[in-house]
């Protein structure tokens, strides 16, 4: 048992902190300070900066461009990243399609796509959900028909984050409608510039455009954009779910938010009942400790080669609920200062003025990536052995 970082880890932490101090410029950290989502340019600037440093594809094996860090080092990096107010990196390339490619892809596919992901130049989006396949992914209908040297794709995806930024989409499509639900699904890579693709924005209640609908009409996709074999889509999708989830609970960002909340309370006028506010924050901090130490345990277990199973789903459930709780506290402790729609500076603490944007945005975090109810169903199966 040892709850402290080793001397080497502390040195590593310091070196990361120094680097962040030197490289995270005001425009990169600005968004998180304002509760904004970064624009494409800022996000890409930040990711390419990390890519240049070799710090983007953190979990990847060294041979494909990973930095060769332990899970603890990755955790430390994430902590420092959040504390300095830099945004999380987009998961679609680095955490999702990348591992799929180096695990299931052909040599040609690896050579073609991995370098762009490692450097942060190639942006991806994820084509999973469809209008009638949300939690129930296996019922998806987007069709990819094999025709000579290509697939002909027709159908619709929805809730596609950053589709309007992306160069490429990785996508679940139905290649065989005759077999049972899960079996006819394949994993396909689609160039977003291919004719026949239409991306329509969805504006969400935080006032942002990050989601999209994507329509495919006779979109031609080369056969060698298929990953693995036809019908392997479901296997690949499940593999992704078991991939490292040590940052899934958003603990580093919750810690950052609580720090901001404390700042906002400290700078608020004294008409305000601060002792009530500090107690509410104390309750949040106590809950954060439980999350953090559970997260530490998953990290330590990963470094010992024994990654957590159901525990990490538990962490996702708790972590997302906690993010919502912190953001709700921020809105409520802000009182009238929080009554803004447009995330604009009105009066009093900036942090409170901009609190509702994150609160609204985070309503989705217990829904996407498998709603918490679905996560609980899956956990129950594992626990009850049904």
């Amino acid at each position, binding site marked *: 048992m040892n709850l402290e970082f080793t001397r080497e880890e502390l040195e590593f932490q310091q070196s990361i902190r120094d680097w962040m101090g030197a490289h995270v410029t005001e425009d990169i950290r600005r968004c998180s300070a304002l509760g904004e989502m970064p624009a494409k340019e800022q996000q890409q600037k930040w990711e390419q900066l990390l890519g240049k440093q070799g710090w983007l594809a953190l979990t990847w094996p060294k041979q494909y461009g990973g930095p060769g860090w332990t899970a603890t080092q990755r955790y430390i990096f994430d902590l420092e990243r959040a504390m300095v107010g830099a945004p999380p990196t987009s998961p679609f390339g680095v955490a999702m399609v990348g591992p799929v490619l180096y695990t299931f892809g052909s040599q040609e596919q690896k050579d073609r796509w991995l370098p762009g992901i490692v450097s942060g130049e190639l942006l991806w989006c994820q084509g999973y*959900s469809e209008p*009638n396949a*949300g*939690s*129930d992914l296996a*019922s998806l209908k987007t069709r990819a028909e094999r025709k000579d040297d290509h697939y002909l794709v027709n159908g619709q995806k*929805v*809730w596609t984050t950053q589709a309007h930024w992306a160069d490429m989409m990785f996508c679940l499509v139905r290649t065989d409608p005759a077999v049972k639900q899960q079996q006819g699904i394949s994993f396909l890579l689609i160039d977003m510039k291919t004719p026949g693709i239409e991306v329509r924005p*969805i*504006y*969400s*209640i*935080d006032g942002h455009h990050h*989601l999209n609908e994507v329509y495919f009409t006779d979109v031609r996709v080369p056969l060698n954009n298929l990953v693995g074999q036809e019908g392997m889509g479901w296997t690949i999708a499940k593999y992704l779910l078991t991939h490292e989830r040590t940052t899934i609970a958003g603990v580093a960002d919750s810690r950052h938010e609580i720090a901001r909340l404390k700042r906002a309370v400290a700078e608020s*006028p004294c*008409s*305000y*009942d601060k002792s*009530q506010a500090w107690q*509410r924050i104390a309750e949040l901090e106590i809950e954060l400790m439980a999350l953090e130490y559970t997260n530490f345990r998953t990290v330590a277990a990963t470094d010992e080669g024994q990654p957590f199973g159901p525990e990490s789903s538990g962490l996702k459930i708790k972590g997302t609920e906690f993010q*919502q709780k912190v953001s709700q506290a921020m*809105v*409520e402790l*802000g*009182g*009238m*200062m*929080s*009554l*803004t*729609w*447009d995330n*604009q500076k*009105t*009066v*009093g603490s900036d942090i409170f003025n901009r609190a*509702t944007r994150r*609160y*609204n945005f985070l*309503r*989705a975090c*217990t*829904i*996407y990536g498998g*709603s918490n*109810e679905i996560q*609980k169903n899956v956990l129950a199966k594992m626990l009850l052995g049904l």
Partner: protein
Amino acid sequence: MEFTLPENTTLIADTARRYLKNNYSFDAYRQQLEQADHLQSPRWSLMQELGWFGLPFAESSGGYGGDLLDVAMIVRELGAALCLDPYVDVVVAPGKLLEFIGSDAASTMLTQLINGQARLACALYDFQAGYQVLTPSLNFNGVRLSGQKHFVPDGGHADILLVTALNGSELVLCAVPLKLCETQRYRALDGSRMVNVLFEDVVITDEMIIARGEVVEEALGRLLAYLRALDCARMYGAASALYQRTLEYAKIRKQFGVTIGSFQVIQHYLVDMFIDLQQLESMLLMVAIKAESTDDFQRQRASLAAKAYYADKAVRIAQQAIQIHGGIGVTEELDVGHYFRLITHGSLTHGDRAHLVKGFAELRN
């Protein structure tokens, strides 16, 4: 005891519902979101024709002598329809404040308001004083006011602001033409318009002073109880609409080959929403009667309790409505997210939950 609405109240509520159905819609709401001046709309004069301007006020003031309950039923329908017309902020709130003051100057101004000649708004808050309306930060310096008022709801639509300020330790209510001040306008969380107001050496003449001292404090106490009840009414309209929509959605949305309403967990979520909504309805009926009680203790107790309860349970219903809707619930295109914001907004006006519970606890009997 009797919980059936009086016939004329039912009539008022039905009329409001029909009127909104014929003259308002989610599309109209989305257009209104982008507009800065709501009072240009033909609806504004229609509302006056329907008698809503006079409804909240005693016949002796030139009104129609409606009860808070009547007004609450209109406001409930406005909430259920997401309607942004600033009926409460530009008619009810300033009008009731003037009526509670009851001086000659106040009565004259109230008559103008009822006739549609004067457009008023209340400037009671600033961020330094927070919810403590009896101790505003705005202070007289001789006959001049310098400082700020914040969070004035729909204040941009008014010609005249009813402003509270301290002269020494005495609370003064004055009517200040908006054009004498600088304003910062912004869209509030529920889509309505708010202004922050900057006073730079504004000279307050004797005619601008409506009342001073205890009478202002008392009137503010009565006003807050009245407005908290209307906050509840508006949130009830929204929460009830959310419940209906979510129930309908659970009956038609399919996942895994069945409707999501067939999952036991979703069923229990819906039952919890239903039960909470029942209790919210009880609290609304209670506060709509008691918040205009002449008994100070009863009035405060009712209005603090009801709003604190709403800030907890209506907010929870709004959160669950989104969770059950899933992705579609967080989009701008669906009304669900807009009701969600309305309820968040309503839970923070005239006291947040902690402030109200504390006030209630201090009301020892």
